């Protein structure tokens, strides 16, 4: 169970506990009160049924986690009305005594119905309950002091704990909401932190991949040991520039990351006036970045060396991916790391044509 579900679970457990107390309170009070009750059995049974039904409906609502307002008002009206009917049928001297059994459970049933609502509603219900009892008491004229003390004591006894329960639940709900919000913020921060760490690692790796080749070239041009106008140096610069362009395009958040990287390389040489034809057959399976790099490095270097035209063909199925580049330029340097990733690279030349092809084949163990 996650922390978030845990917070809500405490609220549900508390709600079910309140419902159980309401049922036990109702049922346990009822048998003692109903025997010889001056209000008669019909009103007593009706009141009992309404209390139990309201409690059952509340329990169902709590378990489902639903919110209700109109239904809550309807159930409160129902329990207050049946209780008032029952109490009005009692002789005034029986108010706040054993036959007036409904006043006690009413508070717990109301608490079950109003869980999660504002506490003022619970106070209102209990006040109404007390006022109904007082009105019934006044029906026989002004009560004596002993009756008033008994009534007042009873009123406090049936109200304080229930209102405290409503207050406690309300605070518990606030704590749960705050805990959920804190947890979301923490998860969000963790995710951002993880992404930033991964991005930093990827950038460091790319930076290393670039620095191993491009930095020496730039340094050589800067210190004059390499002539920037020399054809070989110019070709090396084109290869490195296309390589950087491809490495910058290394993201997994696209439909086909490998095709995305190939297009980046193509774009780099097209800007230099090379006419490129790209053909693809099959769907490239998801490949990790180092494997894609091992697969693309040599063909894309050959592509970057193209003089005026190039043909790039990607053929893929579940078990293999091949990247083929034919150009009118020299071959690119061979990726030394290919064998580690089951990448085979071959270069074939004909007069004024170079064909470089790298093929990755899924290992037999992986296929099994």
């Amino acid at each position, binding site marked *: 169970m996650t922390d978030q579900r845990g917070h809500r679970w405490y609220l549900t457990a508390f709600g079910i506990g309140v419902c159980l107390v309401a049922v036990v309170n109702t049922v346990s009070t009822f048998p003692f009160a109903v025997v010889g009750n001056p209000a008669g059995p019909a009103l007593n049974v009706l009141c009992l049924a309404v209390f139990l039904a309201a409690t059952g409906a509340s329990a169902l609502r709590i378990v489902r986690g639903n919110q209700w307002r109109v239904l809550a008002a309807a159930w409160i009206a129902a329990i207050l009305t049946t209780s008032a009917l029952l109490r009005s049928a009692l002789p005034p001297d029986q108010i706040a005594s054993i036959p007036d059994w409904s006043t006690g459970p009413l508070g717990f049933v109301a608490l079950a119905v109003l869980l999660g609502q504002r506490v003022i509603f619970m106070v209102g219900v209990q006040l109404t309950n007390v006022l109904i009892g007082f009105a019934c008491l006044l029906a026989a004229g002004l009560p004596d002091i002993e009756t008033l003390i008994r009534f007042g004591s009873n009123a406090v006894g049936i109200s304080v704990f229930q209102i405290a329960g409503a207050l406690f639940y309300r605070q518990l709900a606030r704590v749960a909401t705050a805990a959920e919000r804190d947890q979301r913020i923490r998860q969000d921060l963790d995710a951002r932190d993880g992404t930033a760490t991964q991005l930093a690692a990827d950038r460091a790796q790319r930076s290393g991949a670039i620095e191993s080749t491009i930095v020496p070239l730039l340094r050589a041009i800067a210190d004059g040991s390499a002539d920037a106008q020399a054809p070989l140096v110019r070709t090396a610069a084109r290869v490195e520039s296309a390589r950087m362009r491809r490495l910058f395009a290394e993201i997994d958040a696209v439909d086909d990351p490998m095709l995305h990287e190939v297009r980046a390389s193509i774009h780099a040489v097209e800007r230099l006036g090379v006419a490129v034809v790209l*053909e693809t*057959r099959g769907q490239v399976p998801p490949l990790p970045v180092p494997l894609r790099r091992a697969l693309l490095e040599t063909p894309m270097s050959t592509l970057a060396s193209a003089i005026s035209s190039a*043909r790039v063909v990607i*053929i893929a199925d579940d078990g293999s991916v091949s990247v083929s580049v*034919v150009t009118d330029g020299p071959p690119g340097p061979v990726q030394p790391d290919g064998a580690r990733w089951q990448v085979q690279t071959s270069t074939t030349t*004909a007069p004024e*044509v170079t*064909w470089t092809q790298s093929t990755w084949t899924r290992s037999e163990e992986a296929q099994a």
Partner: protein
Amino acid sequence: MTEPISGPTSEPVAEPINGPIKGPASEPVAGPINGPIRVAVIDDHDVVHAGIEAWCRDADPPITVTRSYTDPAEFDPAASTGVDVVVLDLQFQEGRSGLDVLRRLVAAGLRVVVYTMSTDATTVLTCLDYGAACFLTKSEGKRHLVAAIQAAAANTPYLGPTMAGAMADDRRDERPVLSPREQEVLLHWFRTDSKNLVASALYISTATVNTHLARVRTKYAAVGRPATTKAALIARALQDGLITLDDV
């Protein structure tokens, strides 16, 4: 790339056949060609007309473009006795289906070279099944188109790289049975668009590469729905000894 490749082979284009060839269908069979090849172009872009006309003028021997059409409805196959080959685009404005046009032209016994932007393998194979002599993408350009027109006029097979890619990736039940070597040649031809490179990589001659490609193309003509153009291609391949009756 400057590698000189022309036609299905680097050798001269096959001579026109002598006499009409009867196919399995009842439509008129593409007949012999005397004199320059005459071509009609159906494409909704004027610039394509101009380009193809220029390429045909420069061809050796020159090819005559009798007329270019922007709307396929303007081309009447029944009144096309002066046309040997039709170069057809598949994509027209107003949603007209190029495949329907192809079917109509093939049914009339015309040799059709499909020349389009589409590289989709399903489209390629559908066109071949309908009886197109050849399928080329517009990126395949002058050398393939001129060679394909010449091959179509002679009823000899021509197979462009995009066609090869579609055939190599063909997973249909009705595909012809290709030998492993033919499959290998197809893939390499698709990858390189260079028969010299294919020959170097497989340690065979370019003539052998051409033979493999021609056999594959003929095998494709022997499957699927019948068409007079397919029958003419098969008949010519039998005459040239590219295939035997057992192959079809």
